């Protein structure tokens, strides 16, 4: 079999998620009529190189209309940079024409490439090499760079076949050798003409410099909790590391879902023969990895701090999260020039971001802890073991408290998502006033007062963005605070700008008087950052409120919402019909949500079927409807199993039992689900096709079936409307 390897990529069994990004790049590459310029922005070791190389592989083998060229900037400068790019470009152009991967893997001198160009009847292109040689002889770096980076558009013009460049680590092109022209300027000059490309970068500098016109930026985050945990479980299985899902979930969050750090941790546990079944083992392996292992090595490869003062500055930014230039100059007694040089270096490494005089830490948690380790040992003179021990101690305490409140991150995310869905809707005020709601909420339902008036409603703002208050509240404890900014009344002027300061209590206990007092105090301080704007304050507690807290918040005019109110609010924001119904309904029942996770294994779908049978029966569905839901759910689970890339992956099911419908979400571990293929009409006398009936069955058995794109894949949404006994028979009749 022909060896199809082009550039090194990680083994299939160790690559997870990122399919949507790869597919997006492939689609963009195939649109030569509209030159596209895309920047893939992400921290170091988040998988940018892997994404570009995999997209290149698909483009190399999967189509013939665009020439894909992958190039990784290596920090060369001057003529060497031009020659390296030129060699790689010609080599890949010839390899693609012949579909010969061998040519890509060989190191070929320029003379040999010139001959190959002639042999392949590409005489017109050999002039690129002649120009390069001439520029090299004359020591004209600018001419050499212009010639090399202009080669793609020349080939496009001569051959009529478009070129798509995949430029890895483009940020390395912006660092020039002293006196030499920066590669990035020559590159921008050549590429802005017509060539389509995607470039990866760890720093925002490229995007902010505005060198490329119409540059689209894709920000690459971590893998997401579900995919990270599935990835860790799969790697643990592969490398024989015993694990426990709760510990893996904490580790995934701790490593900020960084795929390379996750792999390094599992490899380290495997090497050490340590299980990941408890926090202590996990933190021990992590600390060793960070200081002496692969993670530390990766961090050392790009975090270079040349002076002790530089280390002090970096450690300060890392610890405090952000700082101003004046603050740093005063605190570390460094000159403006010295600080600028330091910040440029940190910014090029992608660990700090600068903007409007403020410097923000952008390196992530592992990098922050690594810097702290270097600082404590080199500046403060503490021994490595002492620093390691204090990291383990603090991490264990943090992990222990997280384990005690499993719902923490999800609940805050839910509130944040809810705030983002505010889009000028009117909602019942009672959903934001817990004392009133709680007084009339009995036996799982809210009984509305008989006469409702217009003033019983609240007009929500159009929220344009949400962020947490950490930047302003470094040392605060108590409920997390989310700031949501937006406009109201459909008017985008200062008079209608509004800020919602939202406190979220994530722990498994009600909001008490202390929480309420703390939030009121902090919200008054935070208000100072938004002078002149309308402020709304809102507290959300998953476990409700104590009577004193309710009273205090009500007296202060702070909105208050518990989890039952939140579910109703969510439903009325997502569904206009539901919102209208709620306004006139005498009885409001919040949606009940159930989550079930099943493994991708034989007959596991029957567990889901059993769960939905119980839920459906409780909701009042008739026997046949339940049987239909079960059959459709089984189909969706099988679809999710079949398309999961992870052998021991899981399928995540969410059942939302509403007043009039059951909604089921089916999602697998990060892979695409089958899109409905559609069955062509078979001739009446011939038997139906054998395969591909899954979606047809779902559609035939349910009232609504949707395939929704989500982070790292897709999910199937099934909906069945509730018709009480007799309703459905009447409808069918």
């Amino acid at each position, binding site marked *: 079999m022909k060896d199809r390897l082009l550039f090194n990529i990680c083994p299939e069994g160790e690559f997870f998620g990122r399919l949507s990004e790869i597919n997006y790049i492939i689609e963009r590459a195939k649109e030569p009529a509209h030159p596209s310029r895309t920047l893939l922005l992400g921290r170091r070791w988040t998988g940018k190189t892997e994404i570009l190389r995999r997209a290149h592989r698909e483009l190399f083998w999967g189509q013939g209309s665009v020439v894909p060229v992958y190039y990784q900037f290596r920090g060369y400068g001057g003529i060497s940079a031009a020659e390296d790019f030129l060699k790689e470009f010609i080599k890949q152009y010839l390899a693609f024409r012949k579909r010969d991967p061998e040519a890509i893997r060989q190191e070929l001198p320029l003379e040999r490439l010139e001959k190959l160009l002639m042999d392949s009847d590409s005489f017109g292109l050999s002039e690129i090499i002649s120009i390069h040689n001439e520029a090299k002889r004359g020591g004209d770096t600018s001419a050499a760079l212009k010639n090399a980076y202009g080669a793609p558009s020349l080939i496009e013009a001569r051959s009529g076949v478009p070129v798509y460049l995949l430029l890895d680590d483009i940020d390395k092109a912006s660092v020039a050798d002293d006196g030499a022209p920066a590669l990035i300027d020559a590159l921008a000059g050549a590429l802005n003409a017509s060539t389509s490309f995607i470039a990866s970068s760890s720093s925002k500098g490229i995007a902010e410099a505005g060198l490329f016109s119409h540059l689209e930026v894709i920000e690459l985050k971590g893998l997401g909790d579900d995919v990270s945990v599935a990835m860790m479980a799969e790697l643990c299985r592969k490398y024989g590391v015993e694990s426990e899902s709760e510990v893996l979930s904490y580790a995934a969050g701790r490593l900020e879902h960084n795929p390379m750090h996750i792999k390094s941790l599992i490899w380290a546990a495997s090497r050490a023969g340590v299980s990941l079944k408890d926090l202590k083992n996990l933190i021990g392996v992590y600390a060793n990895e960070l200081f002496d292992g692969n993670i530390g090595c990766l961090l050392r490869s790009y975090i270079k701090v040349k002076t002790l003062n530089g280390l002090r500055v970096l450690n300060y930014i890392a610890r405090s999260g952000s700082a101003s230039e004046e603050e740093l100059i005063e605190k570390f007694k460094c000159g403006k020039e010295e600080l600028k040089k330091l910040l440029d270096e940190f910014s090029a490494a992608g660990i700090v971001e600068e903007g409007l005089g403020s410097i923000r830490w952008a390196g992530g948690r592992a990098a922050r802890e690594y810097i702290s380790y270097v600082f404590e040992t080199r500046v403060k003179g503490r021994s490595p073991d002492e620093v390691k021990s204090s990291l383990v101690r603090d991490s264990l305490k943090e992990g222990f408290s997280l384990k005690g409140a499993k719902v923490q991150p999800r609940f805050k995310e839910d509130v944040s998502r809810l705030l983002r869905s505010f889009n000028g809707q009117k909602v019942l005020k009672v959903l934001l006033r817990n004392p009133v709601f709680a007084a009339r909420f009995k036996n799982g339902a809210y009984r509305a007062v008989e006469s409702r008036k217009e003033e019983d409603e609240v007009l929500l703002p159009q929220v344009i963005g949400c962020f947490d208050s950490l930047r302003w509240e470094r040392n605060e404890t108590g409920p997390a605070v989310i700031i949501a900014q937006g406009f109201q009344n459909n008017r985008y002027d200062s008079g209608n700008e509004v800020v919602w300061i939202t406190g979220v209590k994530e722990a498994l206990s009600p909001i008490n008087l202390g929480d309420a007092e703390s939030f009121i105090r902090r919200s008054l301080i935070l208000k100072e950052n938004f002078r002149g704007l309308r402020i709304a304050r809102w507290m959300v507690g998953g476990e409700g409120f104590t009577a004193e807290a309710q009273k205090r918040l009500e007296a202060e005019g702070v909105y208050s919402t518990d989890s039952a109110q939140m579910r109703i609010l969510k439903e009325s924001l997502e569904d206009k019909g539901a919102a209208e119904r709620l306004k006139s309904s005498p009885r409001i029942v919040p949606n009940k949500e159930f989550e079930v996770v099943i493994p991708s294994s*034989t*007959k596991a*779908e*029957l567990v889901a*079927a059993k769960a939905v049978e119980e839920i459906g029966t409780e909701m009042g569905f008739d026997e*046949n409807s339940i*049987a*239909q839901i*079960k*059959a459709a759910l*089984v*189909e969706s689970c*099988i679809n999710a199993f079949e398309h999961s890339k992870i052998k021991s992956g899981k399928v995540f099911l969410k059942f939302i039992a509403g007043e009039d419908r059951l909604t089921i979400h089916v999602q697998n571990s990060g892979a695409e689900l089958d899109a409905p293929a559609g069955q062509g009409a*078979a001739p*009446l006398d011939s*038997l*139906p*096709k*054998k*395969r*591909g*009936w*899954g979606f*047809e*069955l779902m559609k*035939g*058995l349910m009232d609504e079936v949707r395939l929704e794109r989500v982070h790292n894949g897709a999910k199937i949404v099934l909906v069945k409307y509730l018709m009480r006994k007799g309703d459905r028979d009447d409808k069918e009749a």
Partner: protein
Amino acid sequence: MIRKHNFKEIGGSVILYPNNYINDIEGEKLEEMCEAFLKKGVKKIVIDFSSTDLINSIGISILIGIIEKVKERKGAILFSGLKKVNHDIFNIVGLTRHIPVYKTEEEAVSDLKWEDHAAV
């Protein structure tokens, strides 16, 4: 291999009783049984689904394969005892246009004309 208790032979015909869930594994068992009976020369097959609560799409594709094999051997196949949801599923797929469906196995067997209209 023909398993005990999953079938009943009546004269030159056989009634098969699949399990409560027809997936790939159960479907293949059913297929094996059909093949075994066809090899024995039995050409009239009733599949009684009265114990079957769920049939998935893989099970469906195997059933279509069974029907094709019976057709190749110039045999006849009937279904009986379908629960409403399974009848709905066969309707969606279009199998009810090709296979006669009876309420009970007795009706299927006692229908003297079944051989004429059940020949596929």
